[in-house]
């Protein structure tokens, strides 16, 4: 099953490589990983998307908790949560396609953030599947480049991950 795990860790050099190293050395899957400092600059917040059986996910959260620099771990998929991912996509946009692509971007609530004679760069946020759907929809034209951040997640309502 797919799980989205959030964690807070000390914002120290090397902390990220400990997490990445843990996943590779223990053979856990990792679909995406995003990390940045929080409003408290001593802490980083990481969102990890992984897949595995319940047993494996249990080990993953235990092993993450065991890392000395990790302060807190929560499996967001255990409750209501929101996920967002950002994608920048550059597509070939010439002739009639220009209108069509713009309309499509509007439908997906994307924004065109860079324009040339031959291309658009579109910014889009949403769940992973929404971004997939947009990529699918763009397939008729030529996709020149895509870049995605991987999912970030947060609990709904009063569910808060804080020290």
């Amino acid at each position: 099953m797919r799980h989205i795990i959030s964690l807070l860790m000390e914002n120290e050099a090397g902390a990220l490589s400990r997490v990445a190293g843990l996943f590779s050395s223990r053979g856990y899957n990792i679909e995406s990983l995003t990390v940045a400092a929080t409003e408290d600059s001593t802490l980083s917040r990481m969102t990890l998307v992984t897949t595995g059986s319940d047993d494996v996910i249990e080990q993953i959260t235990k092993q993450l908790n065991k890392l000395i620099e990790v302060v807190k771990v929560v499996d967001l998929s255990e409750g209501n949560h929101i996920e967002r991912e950002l994608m920048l996509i550059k597509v070939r946009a010439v002739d009639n396609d220009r209108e069509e692509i713009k309309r499509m971007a509007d439908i997906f609530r994307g924004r065109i953030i860079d324009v040339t004679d031959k291309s658009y760069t579109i910014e889009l946020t949403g769940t992973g599947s929404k971004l997939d759907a947009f990529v699918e929809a763009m397939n008729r034209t030529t996709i020149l480049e895509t870049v995605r951040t991987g999912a970030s997640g947060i609990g709904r309502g009063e569910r808060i991950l804080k020290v």
Partner: protein
Amino acid sequence: MFNPTYIADIQHLETQESMSAELTGAEITVRCLQEEGVEHIFGYPGGAVLFLYDELFKQDKVRHILVRHEQAAVHAADGYARSSNKIGVALVTSGPGVTNAVTGIATAYMDSIPLVIISGQVPTHAIGLDAFQEVDTVGITRPCVKHNFLVKDVTELAATIKKAFYIASTGRPGPVLVDIPKDVSQQKTKFAYPERITMRSYNPNIRGHAGQIKKAVQLILEARRPMIYTGGGVILSNAAARLTELVRLLRFPCTNTLMGLGGYPATDRQFVGMLGMHGTYEANMAMQHCDVLVAVGARFDDRVIGNPKHFYNPDRKIIHIDIDPSSISKRVKVDVPIVGNVSDVLDELIKLLELRKEKPDQSTLDAWWAQIDSWRERDCLRYDRTSAIIKPQMVVETLYKVTNGDAFITSDVGQHQMWAAQFYKFDQPRRWINSGGLGTMGFGLPSAMGVQMANPGAHVACITGEASIQMCIQELSTCKQYHLPLKIINLNNRYMGMVRQWQEFFHGNRYAESYMDALPDFVKLAESYGHVGMRIEQPGDIEAALQEAFKLKGRLVFMDFVTDQTENVFPMVPGGKGLSEMILV
């Protein structure tokens, strides 16, 4: 509002501060070691640690033991820690010093041994430039340490070392490495050693959950075929006495893992022997067929329970006490997990059991013991005592007798290790020192050096094989320098016996590369290092030779026992098989 004592305190602090000159990173490091009460440090010098060595030279509180290879420095620190409940400390230089140390670090990591390893690093400005003797020490050691640090700023050095000692010795212990670039060991700052440290990200659970402990008590009282299975956690937690109290109170059978030997007295009737791949028939059968299993500081290793599918038994309830949540339900699902320190949890468990005043049904317990005794009658550890060639088992048995069961025994890895575990009856914890998790050949001799350093005057014997001993044989020189009167018991079967045994059982007797050809003359070798060498070829000479060796109080004696080449370790649970599917003699 005026508070004279308060003001006096501050003044005191101020004068101290103004008086205290700035210290170099190297001075600070040595001061930290002194503050931690470190008496011995095992190491090997090199360019990146020259300032540190200079400071060690200028003082005499911390004694440096010069080994002959960095792997041995870490193994020695490890043996020191295992046999004394102190933190072992090693010091190595950058680059090859560190890579040599890695085997030792991984060995300690797998067996959860508290060590602090200090390594030199190239100067901060040279890091990343492929400088001379540069390796990414933090990167290389990351998967085999509990934690590691690269200190880039001398003002953080003291607090980092404090953290290293704290992390290494608390929770599930383990090795912690502190990498100190050469320029940091030269830079100056004021020194203040923090008394205590708290870390928001690291707070091991000590006391078990009260509700879970209650559940455990209930299960224990209802048990009909109980079994207590204990491991290294009992030793690490200094809980042997507590465990013994509990086992006796309940009259339950008790087994130990290889790492747990000495946690319960091996000569006691309730002890059913070691379990696992080379465990006793009775221990493995009881483990497989029990209905309530109390696992204490043991991690259901693959060498212990064999195939987990075969081990699974829907009628068996498992209680698991461990300080590391990730040890629980890793290979085997448990019913009552208790995260906590063994000695604290056992305390609580005993208290509750005494309060309840009930006892498990004694007649079903008697029936269970009758069953266990019938398994015992199988006499699974028997061997040919009349053999004309020396049987390795007999050497260990005689060693036990000659030392009154009171020696520290280290071992290497192989058949000799298993015979040592099976035939030396450990009644006390921290007496059996071996590499279980990593299975590191070469561990025996250097770890024995550490044991002897920590326990001057004690009998220390290293049971080894002719292949293993050659992996750190250079340490005979260290032993000479520091007058370490170890007794080396070389069970010389001219084979990598453990490998040969697998080839005999599972690879059609094709002994690929497991023959030890061109062996040295160990007697002459020992003599050339300035020690005493003995070769023993007759079973009738075993006891007299051992007596003589232990009479040579100040001397290291290398005893080369020429043993039966074809002897195998029994019982054996073949890889992938279930615990009750043992090959027996």
